[in-house]
């Protein structure tokens, strides 16, 4: 049975080489993802499926405590384990002992000071994985505990334990807009939100394979989002030039940000071991080590003071946010930049004061995670907006309608003017309609039922691509090769991590060349085939690689079109490409197959390879005041969640989420829907069950039994409304969607739960103890929640080792 809107009319599903009509191309269609067939057959080789003769297995000896001085390190017992080929400490790193992405604050191997659980003390290479981990456990570290700090707010107060000698404040960002408008506010809301972190829980653990060529150069095959980050990290620890480090991205089993910054660490470990032993080194992390050691979504503490007038118009917003960086800064500054300018949401507020501070603590360190600080501040902003709506006696939809940025009020809190169309109202209306907002609220609900239903809404204004602060990375490279048979090779620098970048790049190239998607093969990135294209983050994969592909196709056509024109007997300006043929504009019956043009180019030895380049236009932005243009253009997302809450058990069930997304233009419809469905469910999990349980900085639930991500039985039904437009965007007008798909989801769930229970809840996730605590002392299980409360600790000294 054909699926609705599976193909655009006259699409490419049935290739018709003799087509004489103008083909709309594959853009926006649902053609088969190029990676799907091999993956579903089980024949795709991930890094854990690779093996080489003589290959060794790596393991790391890690600190079991969060804060200590390293008094002594004894590796004798580890070296004595049968099968062990090398045990390395910091002194044996050939280059710099450093893995910090932005700040030089994180060593690959600690020498004097442990700052978090999981800090590496020594590395092992052995002939079997079992021997490697056995030896790692036998590395004897004498650790002298020193005071630790686990609360980011406490960490910023004077007199507490210092995580780094320079102090615990990493950086401060601000947005200052308008005069103080507080006097004109009739309703003022104050709130303090504790927003928890999140584990990425990609199904494929972190892993890589390092293959040395003597001590002169090295190949790394890695599960990663950012091969160029891995290249830089490996070059640094080995003391090699970048050109001597080749990083090939392996098929990657999920990332969500967790394979942005972190894969540089296992890669650097494997590289050092490979150079020391002269043998290939495989480093695949066991799940527990992966969850314990890798980066997490940042926990944030967010204080709000917002005011509105009696007509329900926002007058001012004050936000004081503290981001828990954990023990190392990593990319916390970049996360904080996005959080800082996203803290007000898509609302028109005349007076804004946002302060975002980053604090070092002895917790697991934060890193990239889908949304990059925006989900946390959106959770808080949408909670406050609902509070204000209630205080003003307005429906949450109506309150938002009175305050949304739109085509008439287009200035965001940084002063930047949004380009039209601003699709906030469309997204709100479409999501509310899909959810049946009015019908739901018109229906009577029993006030004494054990299970309470609620519906909540949240919006997000998403700055597409990299923030001004990261704009130096916002470039991208592509190579397009027309083969003699008319098939096409495309290489890009951005990665497929499950989000559909191969399908997007294939679609974009096929659309631009007027060929069937099946004629285009997009290969996974390799740092020796394309130039540094920056990271695969910020929902920029399809944008950055797509723009570079379009540039490469443009350049290729300067050589292809003259050949086609000659074969067609027309001028080169008249050549059009569609449905696998070159044709004369306005006379589509005069055409020749692209394959024939390719064969002619090959026979004449005409250069059939072209490179493409993309870089975003320079923007103005003042980091001190937050004034200017943090992002090039924006996307809007609106989610409406319907929940059922078991009041006694405190269990939240997210029944349905209706998601409206301003995407500019659809590139590949199945990939787009998959991103929205997956993002919503990941956001719903974060909202409800995904609790990072830290005890003195140690994750006590590093398993899928104890850290609960949604299963098929938990996932809400996701309704989708796609809003397309001809506004600002990337290739063919497309905007990023990977992150907007998650950002408002948890906030919508929170607002739905609050409506269901009639009490405010200001901690995420909404686990049963949090729900029970919010319901108050009268609840028979209130004592459970009281115990949980104690985990928000003041300064503590480190617990003794295991």
């Amino acid at each position, binding site marked *: 049975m054909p699926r609705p809107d599976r193909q655009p009319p006259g699409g490419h599903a049935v290739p018709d080489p003799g087509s004489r009509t103008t083909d709309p191309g594959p853009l926006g269609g649902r053609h088969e993802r190029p990676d799907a067939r091999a993956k579903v057959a089980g024949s795709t080789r991930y890094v854990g499926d690779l093996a080489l003769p003589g290959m060794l297995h790596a393991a790391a000896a890690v600190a079991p405590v969060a804060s200590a001085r390293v008094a002594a390190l004894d590796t004798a017992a580890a070296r004595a384990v049968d099968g062990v080929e090398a045990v390395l400490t910091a002194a044996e790193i050939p280059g710099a002992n450093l893995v910090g992405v932005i700040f030089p604050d994180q060593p690959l191997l600690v020498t004097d000071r442990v700052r978090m659980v999981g800090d590496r003390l020594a590395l092992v290479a052995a002939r079997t994985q079992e021997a490697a981990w056995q030896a790692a456990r036998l590395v004897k570290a004498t650790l002298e505990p020193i005071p630790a700090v686990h609360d980011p707010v406490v960490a910023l107060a004077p007199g507490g334990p210092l995580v780094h000698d320079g102090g615990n404040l990493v950086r401060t960002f601000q947005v200052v807009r308008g005069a103080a408008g507080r006097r004109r506010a009739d309703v003022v809301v104050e709130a303090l939100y504790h927003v928890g972190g999140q584990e990425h829980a990609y199904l494929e653990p972190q892993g890589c394979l390092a293959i040395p060529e003597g001590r002169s150069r090295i190949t790394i095959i890695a599960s990663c989002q950012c091969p160029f980050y891995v290249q830089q990290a490996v070059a640094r620890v080995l003391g090699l030039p970048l050109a001597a480090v080749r990083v090939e991205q392996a098929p990657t089993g*999920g990332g969500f940000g967790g394979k942005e910054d972190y894969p540089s660490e296992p890669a650097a470990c494997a590289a050092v071991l490979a150079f020391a032993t002269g043998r290939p080194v495989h480093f695949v992390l066991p799940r527990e080590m992966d969850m314990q050691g890798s980066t997490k979504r940042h926990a944030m503490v967010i204080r709000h003071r917002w005011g509105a007038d009696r007509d329900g118009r926002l007058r001012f917003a004050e936000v004081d946010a503290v981001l828990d960086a954990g023990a190392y800064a990593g990319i916390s500054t970049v996360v904080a930049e996005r959080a800082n300018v996203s803290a007000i949401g898509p609302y028109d507020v005349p007076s804004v004061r946002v302060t975002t501070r980053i604090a070092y603590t002895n917790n697991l360190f934060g890193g990239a995670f889908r949304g990059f600080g925006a989900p946390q501040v959106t959770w808080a902003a949408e909670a406050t907006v609902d509070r204000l709506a209630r205080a003003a006696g307005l429906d949450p939809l109506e309150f938002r309608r009175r305050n949304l940025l739109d085509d008439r009020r287009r200035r965001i809190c940084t002063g930047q003017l949004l380009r039209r169309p601003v699709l906030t109202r469309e997204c709100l209306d479409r999501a509310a309609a899909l959810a049946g907002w009015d019908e739901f609220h018109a229906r009577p609900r029993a006030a004494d039922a054990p299970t309470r239903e609620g519906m909540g809404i949240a919006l997000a204004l998403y700055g597409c691509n990299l923030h001004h602060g990261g704009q130096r990375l916002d470039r991208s490279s592509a190579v397009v090769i027309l083969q003699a048979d008319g098939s096409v090779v495309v290489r890009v620098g951005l990665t497929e991590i499950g989000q559909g970048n191969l399908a997007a790049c294939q679609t974009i190239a096929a659309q631009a060349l007027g060929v069937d998607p099946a004629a285009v093969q997009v290969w996974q990135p390799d740092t020796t085939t394309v130039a540094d294209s920056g990271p695969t983050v910020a929902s920029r994969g399809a944008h950055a690689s797509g723009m570079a592909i379009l540039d490469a196709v443009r350049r290729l056509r300067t050589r292809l079109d003259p050949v086609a024109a000659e074969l067609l007997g027309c001028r080169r300006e008249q050549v059009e490409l569609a449905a696998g043929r070159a044709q004369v504009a306005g006379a589509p019956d005069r055409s020749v197959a692209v394959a024939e043009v390719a064969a002619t180019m090959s026979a004449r030895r005409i250069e059939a390879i072209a490179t493409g380049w993309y870089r975003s236009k320079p923007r103005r932005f003042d980091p001190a005041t937050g004034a200017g243009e943090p992002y090039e253009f924006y996307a809007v997302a609106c989610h409406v969640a319907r929940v059922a809450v078991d009041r006694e058990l405190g269990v939240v069930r997210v029944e349905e989420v209706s998601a409206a997304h301003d995407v500019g233009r659809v590139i590949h419809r199945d990939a787009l829907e998959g991103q929205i469905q997956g993002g919503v469910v990941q956001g719903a999990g974060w909202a409800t069950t995904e609790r990072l349980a830290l005890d003195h900085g140690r994750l006590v639930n590093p398993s899928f039994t104890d850290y609960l991500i949604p299963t098929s039985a938990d996932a809400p039904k996701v309704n989708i409304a796609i809003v397309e437009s001809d506004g600002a965007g990337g290739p063919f007008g497309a905007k990023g969607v990977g992150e907007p798909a998650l950002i408002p989801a948890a906030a919508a769930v929170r607002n739905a739960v609050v409506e269901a229970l009639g009490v405010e809840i200001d901690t995420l996730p909404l686990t049963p103890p949090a729900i029970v605590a919010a319901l108050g002392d009268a609840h028979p299980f209130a004592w459970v929640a009281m115990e949980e409360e104690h985990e928000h600790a003041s300064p503590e000294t480190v617990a003794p080792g295991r």
Partner: protein
Amino acid sequence: MPERITVALTLNGARRSFEVAPGRRLLDLVREDAGLIGAKEGCGAGECGACMVLLDGAPVTSCLVLAASADGHEVVTVEGLARGGALHPFQEAMVTHGGVQCGFCTPGIAVTGAAVLARGGDAADRTRLLAGNLCRCTGYAKVMEALDDAAAKETADAPA
């Protein structure tokens, strides 16, 4: 305890025999001894379902099954789901419905899905039975669409 023990089993329809250490997991036998890398190790603790194989037709997390206990039994991995060179109908439906994203959980889902189809039942049963396979990319919607579609086709194709 002997150093090695013999495990004779039917693997994807072929009689095979392996000499393994007593503690070896079925997952290691399948991946390393038989070279069938479709089953993945996502957790090593029976939590994620990426290593699912069929043991006498029932889906099991092969990281929790001793290879020795498969002696005399029938094991089918994702590589054995194809029928006559074509993908299993559920695998084919996963492709056409866009149910494949990063692909790491996909072989396990294909194996469980095939068993769920063989078992029969309604959409709610299918959703519940697939809950032992974690997926972080898709939110399960297109996976369940594919499974429902394959189930509908099986019903339609079944003799009246």
